């Protein structure tokens, strides 16, 4: 259906993407990146529709979307 790839090193875990995702599919990694942020990641590729709303609101252009 759809998928997102979050650039782990660019994500600052601001969580604005979690507000945007209509299906609440975004959660945060257990592993911190080199800046100390635990980046966002997609919890389920089967449920993601590739709507790209998360990518649209991401202030760090850290998300790429496929459909």
């Amino acid at each position, binding site marked *: 259906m759809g998928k997102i790839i979050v650039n782990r090193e660019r994500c600052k875990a601001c969580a604005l993407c979690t507000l945007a995702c209509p299906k609440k599919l975004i959660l945060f990694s257990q592993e911190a990146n080199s800046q100390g942020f635990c980046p966002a990641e997609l919890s389920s590729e089967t449920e993601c529709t590739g709507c790209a709303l998360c990518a649209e609101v991401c*202030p760090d252009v850290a998300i790429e979307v496929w459909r």
Partner: protein
Amino acid sequence: MKQVFKRPQSLKDVPFHFCPGCHHGTIHRLVAEAIDHFDLRERTIGVAGVGCSVFVYEYFDIDVAEAPHGRAPAVATGLKRVLRDRIIFTYQGDGDLASIGMSEIVHTANRGENITVIFVNNTVYGMTGGQMAPTTLLGQQTTTSPYGRDFLQDGYPIRMAEMLATLEGTSFSARVAVNTSANLMKAKKAVRRAFEMQTNDLGFSFVELLSSCPTNWGLNPIRANERVEKELIPYFPLGIFKERKGTDYL
């Protein structure tokens, strides 16, 4: 599967230094998307204000001039008068544009200079640590209004988009926000429209984008984002306050 969202070409592939949740990054991207949409990258010159906006040259893959604090509209005027077929835009914050730069923005709009102004309004001076700005809301605590903005002492916050819309020279004036997906889509349209006006030589275009400043508001990114909805938008309503059509000039 095909890629349906990626970084615009005019935005360099480098990390943003902005604070987590700051809307500058989003707004940079919207501007880059508009530049790419009309294939303007190679003939666009940006003018950076002073503040968190000063690093525009690090992020856009275009020619950029740095202007003194508040003076970007005047620098842009000089550039556009020489390079009439190039696209010139300024990127300024609320301290830069609405305080020290008030004369330059009003007169540049009044002259109807054919440039685009991207105005990022987060109700504080960000770079310098969160001082009161002309757009700080009544009651808002900042480092120079520790008891909250009081209209008897500091006056009311100033509404730039409406004010500039009253000038004959202004062809497009809008206020948008990027705090929700719906608002962001409208913001995208407005930014695109502003650049389109310039490509059609339709005169001065102005977009005010409400933005959060989590660090200086003392709020986490989510709460700061909410504040835009709860506190900023009621005082700074979203909308298009002026939009000139080509036929208006005939």
